[in-house]
């Protein structure tokens, strides 16, 4: 095997081993709810077993040794010898974490780093703690010793010999064969530990046909020979003799382990059993011949697995393992048929090209419309529809359910609640909601911080909850749904809510709010997203360091998302994160202001008002108000905002947009219509320009700027609030004046 292939195999092993650790954690979490689920217990055991087996292939003795102890405890759990209580579950979680640590250590050792001695020490500690569950004596072993035990210890099982059950056919003697010679041959393969002759089948002397063989034997044989080699002793008498070769317990365990870990992809049960050495090819052929003697569909026809066990051809545990493997193979085949692994950079390249295609298509449509050739316009529209479908298809390739990210939080909530001595249950809603892989990759960390925060700051202790008339067990809900063309993720808790007095006091202390100011509740709540802000009395390793919430906001905004917090004192807190579904392509609405083109993400557009006249506000102000169906709508004049010379003779139009619950109007010169657009990142220089989220290239080759509706609605809202405030002050002054005049 070349170095390259070996490296790839190693990389694959590390990735798979980590997946197996995730599998252990996920099974443990599910077992906490349903401790008797055998399939979960098997999955748990299989995961540990796979890690051990694969680690052995790469010579990672420390991992093999440690995982062996974990596997032993899981085996006893599976056998019902021990039960899964909270302490054992927690220990297994620690073991899973430790395996991950060992894997990391092994991976870095490969990169030239020295192995961490503390990892070996920690292994010893965990092995001692595992001892009561493995049935072993509580002696800490070094991983190397444990690794040796993993191989040698299993030899000390009760039944370490092969058992041969022989029934010779009547013609054995006449055919010139002597069972005595066969038994003598067996002795050359190892050591015949015992032989018992069966006297029952031998007729009474007067009824005996002395030339007919009635002999049967039960033989115990100690040998390192394979089943095939043992079977070869009976090659010449195979036709007339019934031979059952039952492997020793150790061999059965090896066979079961081999079946479970080999990833044998055979579709047939018999092939899996033959490949693992549980039965020989000849035994399989005989069993199949017996089975096929009864026509298919006949109710008396016995299943192969049943027959093999009943006839003592194969151990029941091996047949069970093979049946499970067969089912897995079928599932895997179905899965394989459903999935193709594609490198993500290839996918990115495809999406980029589709993006260019979208731009080219938009350009073609514009050019076609200019020609006024109806057939050409029809063709380009038809092509545009197809390209739209290709775009949707290409983008959906990158879509992954958010459930995998959410599932990780079950463990987080369990552990954090345990550390804080709080009782918290996590509910997950909308795990199937899909969003772009790159968004999913970036949302994990912010979510982690928010969930930890909810538990650390938001959630009360069980006693506090009881005193407040709430159930002792708190509730955190992690939900996701599609909303307004994006995704809305919420982290809700039913804790104490934000303590606004504390937040405000801290904000004043930090100089974030002027002393004596009375900000609105929502403003106070959102202060927690300010840099360096924390109200925790003591810093814990979970949260309270004052780094995090501002980073959370920055990360979310970096994804073109927005984060909002709502809180009810004593009732809980809800953090809402709004994210775009993808970062690559959006449906836009193209507008023109002066000689500049802007793209408004279509998902934000509510309506367009062509030639709006009822605009208020000073001629030089960026913002103003528009009377829209008896309601005041704050508007932003894009020309003034970006310093563009507008065509003054023109009647201006307004695009009404929405961001969450807030609405605003964008005043533009021309409405050009819907337009699919590929988002290109802004250069460093323009990255901090407020109101611009990105850029794109129009079909004409011209650059278009994509508007950041979140910040524009904020600007409009701030202006509206200021107007409201002024109006309030003005009316109160007026009232005061009226009162004075009265």
């Amino acid at each position, binding site marked *: 095997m070349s170095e390259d292939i070996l490296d790839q195999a190693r990389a694959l092993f590390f990735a798979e081993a980590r997946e197996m650790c995730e599998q252990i954690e996920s099974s443990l979490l599910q077992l906490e709810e349903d401790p008797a689920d055998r399939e979960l217990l098997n999955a748990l055991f299989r995961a540990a077993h796979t890690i051990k087996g694969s680690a052995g292939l790469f010579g990672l003795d420390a991992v093999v040794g440690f995982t062996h102890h974990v596997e032993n405890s899981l085996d006893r759990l599976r056998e019902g010898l021990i039960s899964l209580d909270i302490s054992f579950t927690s220990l297994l979680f620690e073991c899973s974490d430790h395996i991950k640590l060992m894997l990391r250590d092994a991976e870095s050792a490969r990169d030239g780093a020295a192995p961490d001695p503390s990892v070996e020490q920690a292994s010893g500690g965990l092995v001692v703690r595992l001892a009561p569950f493995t049935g072993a004596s509580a002696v800490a072993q070094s991983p190397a010793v444990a690794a040796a035990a993993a191989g040698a210890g299993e030899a000390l099982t009760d039944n370490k010999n092969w058992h041969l059950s022989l029934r010779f056919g009547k013609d054995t*003697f*006449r055919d*010139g064969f*002597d*069972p*005595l010679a066969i*038994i*003598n041959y067996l*002795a050359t393969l190892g050591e*015949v530990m*015992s*032989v*018992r*002759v069966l*006297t029952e089948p*031998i*007729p*009474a*002397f*007067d009824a*005996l046909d*002395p*030339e007919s*063989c*009635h*002999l049967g*034997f*039960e*033989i115990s044989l100690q040998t390192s020979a394979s089943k095939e080699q043992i079977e070869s002793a009976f090659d010449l008498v195979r036709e007339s003799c019934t031979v059952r070769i039952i492997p020793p317990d150790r061999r059965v365990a090896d066979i079961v382990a081999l079946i479970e870990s080999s990833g044998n992809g055979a579709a047939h049960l018999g092939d899996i059993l033959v490949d693992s050495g549980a039965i020989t090819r000849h035994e399989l052929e005989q069993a199949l011949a017996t089975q096929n003697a009864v026509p298919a569909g006949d109710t008396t026809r016995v299943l192969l697995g049943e027959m093999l066990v009943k006839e003592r051809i194969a151990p029941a545990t091996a047949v069970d393992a093979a049946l499970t493997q067969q089912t897995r193979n079928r599932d895997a085949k179905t899965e394989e048929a459903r999935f193709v692994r594609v490198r993500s950079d290839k996918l990115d390249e495809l999406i980029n090209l589709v993006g260019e295609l979208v731009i080219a298509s938009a350009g073609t449509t514009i050019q076609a419309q200019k020609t006024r050739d109806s057939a050409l316009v029809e063709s380009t529209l038809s092509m545009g529809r197809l390209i739209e479908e290709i775009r949707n298809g290409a983008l959906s390739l990158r879509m992954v359910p958010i459930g995998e990210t959410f599932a990780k939080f079950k463990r987080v909530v369990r552990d954090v609640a345990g550390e804080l001595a709080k009782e918290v249950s996590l509910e997950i809603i909308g795990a199937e909601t899909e969003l772009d892989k790159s968004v999913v990759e970036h949302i994990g960390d912010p979510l982690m911080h928010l969930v930890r925060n909810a538990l650390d700051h938001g959630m009360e202790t069980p006693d506090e909850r009881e005193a407040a008339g709430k159930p002792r067990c708190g509730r955190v809900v992690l939900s996701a749904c599609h909303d307004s063309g994006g995704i809305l993720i919420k982290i809700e808790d039913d804790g104490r809510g934000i303590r606004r007095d504390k937040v405000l006091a801290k904000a004043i202390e930090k100089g974030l709010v002027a002393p004596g100011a009375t900000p609105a509740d929502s403003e106070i709540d959102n202060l927690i997203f300010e840099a360096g802000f924390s109200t925790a009395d003591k810093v814990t390793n979970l949260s309270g360091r004052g780094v995090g919430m501002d980073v959370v906001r920055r990360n979310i905004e970096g994804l073109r998302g927005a984060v909002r917090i709502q809180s009810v004192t004593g009732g809980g807190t809800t953090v809402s994160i709004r994210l775009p579904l993808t970062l690559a392509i959006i449906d836009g609405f193209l507008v023109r202001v002066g000689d500049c083109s802007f793209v408004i993400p279509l998902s934000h557009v509510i309506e367009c008002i062509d030639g709006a006249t009822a605009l208020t506000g000073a001629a030089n102000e960026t913002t103003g108000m528009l009377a829209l169906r008896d309601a005041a709508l704050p508007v932003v004049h894009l020309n003034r905002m970006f310093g563009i010379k507008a065509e003054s003779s023109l009647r201006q139009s307004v695009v009404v947009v929405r961001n969450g619950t807030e609405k605003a109007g964008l005043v533009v010169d021309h409405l050009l219509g819907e337009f699919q657009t590929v988002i290109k990142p802004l250069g460093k220089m323009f990255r901090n320009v407020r109101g611009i989220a990105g850029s794109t290239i129009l079909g004409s080759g011209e650059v278009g700027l994509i508007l950041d509706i979140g910040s524009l609605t904020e600007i409009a809202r701030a202006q509206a609030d200021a107007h409201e405030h002024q109006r309030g002050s003005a009316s109160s002054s007026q009232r005061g004046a009226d009162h004075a005049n009265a």
Partner: protein
Amino acid sequence: MSARVDLPAEFNIYAVADVWRSVNAGLPGAGSSDALAIDCAQLREIDAAGVQVLLSLAHTARQRAIALQFESMPAFLSERLQALGAADLFATSHDGETRHE
């Protein structure tokens, strides 16, 4: 009165039918309280067919309460019986008589 059987030098598949016929003809009946002496003095070779005859004989003798007596039993016969897991069935007392348990 006791019956007596002389085993041939080669007690194998080729000889079992003759031995069987001769023994069967002189085998004491049930309740006769007779003994059956098996003389192995000439025996040089035995195979599983020969052992099977002895096993059947031992079984029937036990049923009929006939005392089986091996005379001049060679070491190799014990070894063969041992190899076939049949030694216990022919366990003899110090006077050469088979124990019926």
